[in-house]
């Protein structure tokens, strides 16, 4: 495969707020497009499989799927390095994959097994991969934004030329802590990029019912923003590259990614009471992020339809294999109940539900 430059126009122009938007012309390559396709296919397949595992009761509790939004994860990764940080909310599986996380450890975590990326202790909402700059996986709406700005603070404090991408939903975009943290990011010129993944619903609430101004790229007011087609991985890449440069020089910027989640909010939400089936299928047909890349690959004769289908089959296989292997992973050892409460437990006693029966010395 070639790394020669291919030049592509983004689906639509960027819209800027307090900033001149970058050009619609994006550089890519056969190599990159194929990687996008493979990675997104894997993500898509992973989420479909998680859906089945949930229905088979192998995944418990909350489980929020990312299918439909893959281009955001993919395009962002194409623009940055693993020294840049990413932090997100509970819809975190694919961002973990994007950072180099594996399918096996993902499924093991989803099923609460010992070999999960959080040893089964975190679950669906709490994936992390610190060594490649992924800081979770957070369950409280909005909280990850100040946390991400804190990562950016630390990057600047450490005099590193890296940035942090703090991801949040359209629902989270109304959270006050976001405005508080953004003010500080702007005051202190922190290299923070706020990425609003606008999938147009916060649970069952359409954006306009939750926000007087659903123009999220403008909600930073005095902070510049950019509206991006979040279904177009190349547009996302372009925007993230632009934003990273901006953030290192000038401090925070908001990227609103116009995207869509195909699944319901979480597994308990059929996702069909507050939006029409037509709306969903319309997006699938016209804006699907994988299909867009497929078309580009075909248009540029990089691969054949058959080859792409084979890749998808292959991804189905690796996902199934990962699941099979994850199912073999044992439950965490009962002693893990008391590990990681502290880094340094000072050997004090900790108690189980019946303290006269279960007590242990904290490591």
């Amino acid at each position: 495969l070639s790394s020669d430059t291919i030049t592509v126009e983004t689906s639509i122009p960027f819209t800027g707020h307090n900033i001149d938007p970058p050009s619609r012309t994006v550089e890519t390559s056969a190599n990159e497009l194929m990687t996008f396709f493979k990675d997104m296919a894997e993500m898509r397949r992973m989420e479909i499989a998680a859906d089945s595992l949930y229905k088979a009761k192998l995944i418990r509790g909350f489980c929020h799927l990312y299918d439909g939004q893959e281009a955001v994860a993919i395009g962002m990764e194409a623009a940055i390095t693993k020294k840049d940080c990413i932090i997100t909310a509970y819809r975190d599986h694919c961002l973990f994959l994007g950072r180099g996380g594996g399918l096996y450890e993902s499924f093991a975590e989803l099923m609460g097994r010992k070999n999960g990326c959080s040893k089964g202790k975190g679950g669906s909402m709490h994936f992390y991969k610190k060594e490649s700059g992924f800081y979770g996986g957070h369950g409280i709406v909005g909280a990850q934004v100040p946390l991400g700005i804190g990562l950016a603070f630390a990057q600047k404090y450490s005099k590193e030329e890296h940035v942090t991408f703090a991801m949040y939903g359209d629902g989270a975009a109304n959270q006050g802590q976001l405005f508080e943290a953004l003010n500080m990011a702007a005051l202190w010129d922190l290299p923070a990029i706020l990425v609003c993944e606008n999938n147009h619903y916060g649970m069952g609430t359409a954006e306009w019912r939750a926000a007087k101004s659903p123009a999220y790229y403008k909600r930073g007011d005095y902070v510049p923003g950019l509206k991006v087609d979040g279904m177009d991985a190349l547009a996302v890449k372009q925007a993230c590259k632009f934003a990273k440069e901006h953030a290192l020089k000038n401090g925070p910027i908001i990227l609103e990614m116009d995207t869509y989640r195909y699944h319901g909010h979480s597994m308990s939400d059929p996702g069909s009471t507050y939006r029409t089936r037509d709306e969903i299928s319309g997006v699938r047909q016209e804006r699907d992020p994988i299909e867009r890349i497929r078309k580009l690959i075909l248009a540029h004769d990089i691969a054949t339809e058959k080859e792409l289908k084979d890749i998808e089959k292959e991804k189905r296989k690796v996902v199934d294999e990962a699941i099979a292997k994850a199912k073999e992973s044992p439950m965490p050892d009962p002693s893990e109940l008391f590990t990681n409460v502290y880094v340094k437990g000072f050997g004090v006693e900790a108690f189980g539900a019946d303290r006269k029966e279960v007590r242990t010395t904290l490591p």
Partner: protein
Amino acid sequence: KEMTVRDALNSALDEEMSADPKVFIMGEEVGEYQGAYKISKGLLDKYGPERVIDTPITEAGFTGIGVGAAYYGLKPIVEFMTFNFSMQAIDHIINSAAKSNYMSAGQISVPIVFRGPNGAAAGVGAQHSQCYAAWYGACPGLKVLAPYSSEDARGLLKAAIRDPDPVVFLENELLYGESFPVSAESLDSSFCLPIGKAKIEREGKDVTITAFSKMVGYALKAAEILAKEGISAEVINLRSIRPLDRPAINASVRKTNRLVTVEEGFPQHGVGAEISASVVEESFEYLDAPVERISGADVPMPYAANLERMAVPQVEDIVRAAKRACYRAAKSVPMAATA
């Protein structure tokens, strides 16, 4: 007749909204979505968007708005999708709601209900599983209720809505779908349960078990098992965490001379600690054995099913503790089983 806790709560909301136009409900997804857990189902249709208000995901903001509306004399019901999210708004619950009547020497009363599921659900991990009974129960100015059965749910929620003070109303997601028998009386729209009073769910003479919310069911199961082994356990459903019904608890302990406290929350500074201390203060001489505390394990909630099970009390924990309380004591227990 049987009724689920969900229907009990829903009917209580419906009746109180119908009885008093000042009552309204606000929170995330309470309207068009019919409630994240369907507790407010049908209310939007019946009472319209002025009284069933979908909010953005901004707990600090809408809780403050609710409290302000209560200052004015309305009777808001603020739903937290779960009580974990009430931490974003806790300053308003404590500083704006609980303390205002006192600071204003009675000028600014705050007739508001904060409600939603509290404590552990299933498989939702550390950030979505905390029990707030002890925290809120610590604060003068608040009343804190925790229903177990459908009658509790109806009677306490209706009482909470009618009450002129701020009430924290702690539900349990895992109970929503459970059915309980309900009396005809409890289905009357005038039905209310008294705030501050515990209920003896099961009488007994050998050991007192206190519990609230879901743990009442566990305590009752434990009592059944204990009965088979010849131990007669009295189960107290606290219903009210604040005011705590110390008189009822002490009366029971003075009869049984033994006490096991059960709760799902963290152990330190928990409801069990308070009950233990209160009984020691009031009924020390009556205690034939140390008070036994059963509680959540002293760890954040793990996701894995096996660890999660270990992190919350199980029926066998209660049985074991009750036996310990009985066997250790001087009083003779009819039947001996190996602990």
